[in-house]
């Protein structure tokens, strides 16, 4: 297609002994410590690892987009006979966009908000003088169409904010591929997207690069995505590649203990449940029962139009059981959780908690109810007050229900023990803890007033898979010990499968399917549930591999 630069012999990209470090306040921090990686022509190589493993740093050093604090201080980045580490700025700029395409992580912020989409795609061709303005505009529309954008002529004249996240990622794919590069660097291209959209996007990247014979370096934290999409997988940990192989070898016969622990933790690769319990058996009245729950929001910028975010939802949660509510963004699952918590008032429907209708509860009685229903939020970085010590954070809900300071402190210590954190953590502040530790603190805080129900809103979505697995284990243990009920909200079916006794699948504000977890997953009735299940990455490998 482009033909000019890389010679036909040898690998497309050959990274040897790459080392990158960041200048920190206390000297250098090593991010990449001697990485060797080869991408052959037309080959897709997935670089897999947890946050901080150095996978993104490795990929970004190929295109020279590292932050100014970063320094590539050793190694060679061979591309078509040149070393990208030492080429001139001008030469690198000539290769970027033309020979090396880049698909960034977050489509919502990666397009220029004040430029038309078509112009942003065409710009690549104009920068490299591939064609004139009219020809570039024409090719941009073709590239948008190839990236799966409907009505590309109209879309080309739109601005980024008029498109959905998935559509914007398609635009970025068009930008990366419009000049026909021989290598594409994709840095977590779908981690910000819903699972069904993720599948379409990855399918699209796969088709386009395969037909053009483009090499792909796919950076992902998701072993399932890597297994589905890559010819080879390179597993990265602490700045080094610990294992390289084909998906069937990496997943079926991993050598390195780190790879094994990743696979064991990855929810999408584990078919079974974390803890077996007699699911579906209910004793006595349910803990939480909502019927006909409805909530509408006025749409900004319209006159009186409303969006029905939650539309007649019925849910039922047994005592000491877990109800998983699963759906994509905009499905109304978080609004449902906020309604159940009585943080929002429903427009219609009833909420019955432990036999008592709490729909219209106000004042002191509502406040007392708050003790019995607690919340754990998605982002443990934002939901803990950075100025308080862990002890104070955990004891805070106790103080508001009349527990004294000393008793609160004792209870905090007890809870830290319960969530398996060392006792010394009690004097630390949130920023001194890791993401997983923070989420444990958030769980301890929720459990402090001995609630009957904990609403968990995407509690593990911001965490790496191995930490995710630990938190899920912890939640299951705590439930067994304390008999607390969980309303577990997640976009991740694989996570829901591991933790929930019963599942409700939400789509556009409605529950389209509900039932015992195993039934829903093994014999899905609704078409949407089937599509969601089919979109879980790594499924075909699970069948053949482990």
């Amino acid at each position, binding site marked *: 297609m482009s033909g000019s630069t890389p010679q036909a012999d040898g690998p497309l990209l050959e990274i040897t002994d790459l080392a990158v470090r960041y200048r920190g306040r206390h000297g250098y921090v090593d991010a990449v410590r001697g990485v060797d990686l080869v991408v052959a022509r037309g080959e897709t190589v997935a670089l897999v690892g947890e946050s901080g493993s150095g996978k993104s740093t490795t990929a970004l050093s190929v295109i020279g987009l590292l932050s100014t604090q970063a320094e590539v201080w050793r190694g060679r980045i061979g591309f078509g006979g040149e070393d990208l580490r030492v080429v001139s700025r001008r030469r690198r700029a000539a290769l970027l966009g033309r020979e090396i395409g880049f698909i960034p992580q977050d489509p919502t912020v990666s397009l*220029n908000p004040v430029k038309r989409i078509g112009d942003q795609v065409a710009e690549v061709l104009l920068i490299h003088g591939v064609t004139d303005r009219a020809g570039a505009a024409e090719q941009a529309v073709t590239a948008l169409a190839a990236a799966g954008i409907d009505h590309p002529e109209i879309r080309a004249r739109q601005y980024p904010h008029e498109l959905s996240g998935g559509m914007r990622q398609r635009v970025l794919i068009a930008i990366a591929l419009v000049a026909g590069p021989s290598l594409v660097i994709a840095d977590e291209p779908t981690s910000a997207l819903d699972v069904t959209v993720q599948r379409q996007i990855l399918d699209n990247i796969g088709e386009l690069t395969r037909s053009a014979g483009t090499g792909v370096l796919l950076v992902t934290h998701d072993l399932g995505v890597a297994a589905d999409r890559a010819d080879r997988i390179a597993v990265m940990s602490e700045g080094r590649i610990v294992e390289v192989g084909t998906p069937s070898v990496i997943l079926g016969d991993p050598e390195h203990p780190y790879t094994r622990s990743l696979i064991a933790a990855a929810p999408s690769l584990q078919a079974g449940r974390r803890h077996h319990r007699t699911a579906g058996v209910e004793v006595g009245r349910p803990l939480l029962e909502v019927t006909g729950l409805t909530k509408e929001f006025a749409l900004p910028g319209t006159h009186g139009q409303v969006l029905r975010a939650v539309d007649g939802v019925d849910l039922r949660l047994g005592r000491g059981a877990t109800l998983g509510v699963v759906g994509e963004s905009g499905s109304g699952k978080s609004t449902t959780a906020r309604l159940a918590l009585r943080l929002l008032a429903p427009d219609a429907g009833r909420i019955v908690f432990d036999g008592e209708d709490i729909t219209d509860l106000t004042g002191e009685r509502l406040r007392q109810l708050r003790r019995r229903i607690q919340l754990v939020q998605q982002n443990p970085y934002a939901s803990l007050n950075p100025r308080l010590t862990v002890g104070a954070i955990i004891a805070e809900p106790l103080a508001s229900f009349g527990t004294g300071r000393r008793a609160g402190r004792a209870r905090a210590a007890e809870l830290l023990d319960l969530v398996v954190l060392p006792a010394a953590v009690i004097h630390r502040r949130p920023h001194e803890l890791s993401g997983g530790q923070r989420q444990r603190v958030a769980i301890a805080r929720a459990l402090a007033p001995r609630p009957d129900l904990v609403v968990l809103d995407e509690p593990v979505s911001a965490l790496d898979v191995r930490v995710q697995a630990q938190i899920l284990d912890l939640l299951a243990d705590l439930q067994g010990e304390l008999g607390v009920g969980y309303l577990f909200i997640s976009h991740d079916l694989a996570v829901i499968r591991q933790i929930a006794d019963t599942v409700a699948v939400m789509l556009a504000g409605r529950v389209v399917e509900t039932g015992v977890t195993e039934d829903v997953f093994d014999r899905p009735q609704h078409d949407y549930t089937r599509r969601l299940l089919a979109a879980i990455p790594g499924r075909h490998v699970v069948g053949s591999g482990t």
Partner: protein
Amino acid sequence: MGGYLARRLGQAVLVLWAAYTVSFLVLYALPGDAVDTRLGADSGSDITPEQIAALKSDYGLDRPLVIQYLTQLGRALGGDLGRSFDNGRPVTSLIAEGLPATLAIAGAALVISVLAGGGLALLAAGTRHRRLSRFLLNLPPLGVAVPGFWVGLLLLQQFSFRLPIFPALGNEGLRSIVLPAITLALPTSAMIAQLLAKSLSQSLAEPYADTARAKGASRSRVLLRHALRNATLPALTVAGLLTGQLLSGSVVVETVFSRTGLGRLTATAVSAQDTAVVQGLVIFGALVFVLVNLLVDLLYPVLDRRILRTTPRILITAEGRT
């Protein structure tokens, strides 16, 4: 778009009314009026109380405050801002006479500010030399901190007296504009430079700038074609403040350079306690401020389509359902 425009216009009218009312309260409701201070006790002259009363009734100062407020507001709506106590001439014609001279230096100052401030910001954001960038970014605070009259005097000393390039006084000719305009432009350029440099460096750190770099765009292309337009938006918000700064700066500058104009008019009206003229100038200032902000508000949607967000969010979530 229609709703947006109507909202902005409504706000503009409200601001003007508020400016009128507040300035009226401050200038008229306080004890002692222009006639008292001018012809009162200290003059010790032969003016009789009857004459004072006649003068007061001539200007309507003897009537109840509410009536004064309403009649004056009614006249102001018709474009009549009253007469000067000093020379009896209509305030509107005094303003009209002073306007061209002030407009000349303020306009020149605005051009200088945009060029100098914008240029400095672009250079600071665009240069690869960190020391140069840091040095440039230290200039704006200095520009804001230095008092205008001092700079004016310094410029006079250098370029009028030591090197007679520009005239030291007066309104004569284009050359007389140069030094006042530079003096006036100093704080505003500094404001523009500081704001634009900050929002440029923020824009350059955005992921869309990385997308542009990954296209192979040169440093200047990323700066000028991608970052600049996004960075202009926050800088544009202060356009109203800048105009205010230029108007109030003209008071000092026109005094230092002995020019006539609105600034000079303000200075003399204030020292002579010519209430009607002072209020007229306040309202005129508010009018300019409101018009500039209105212009900015109308320019926003042209620069950034997101401001006219009429497409509801439902469009954005629609894809997952198809």
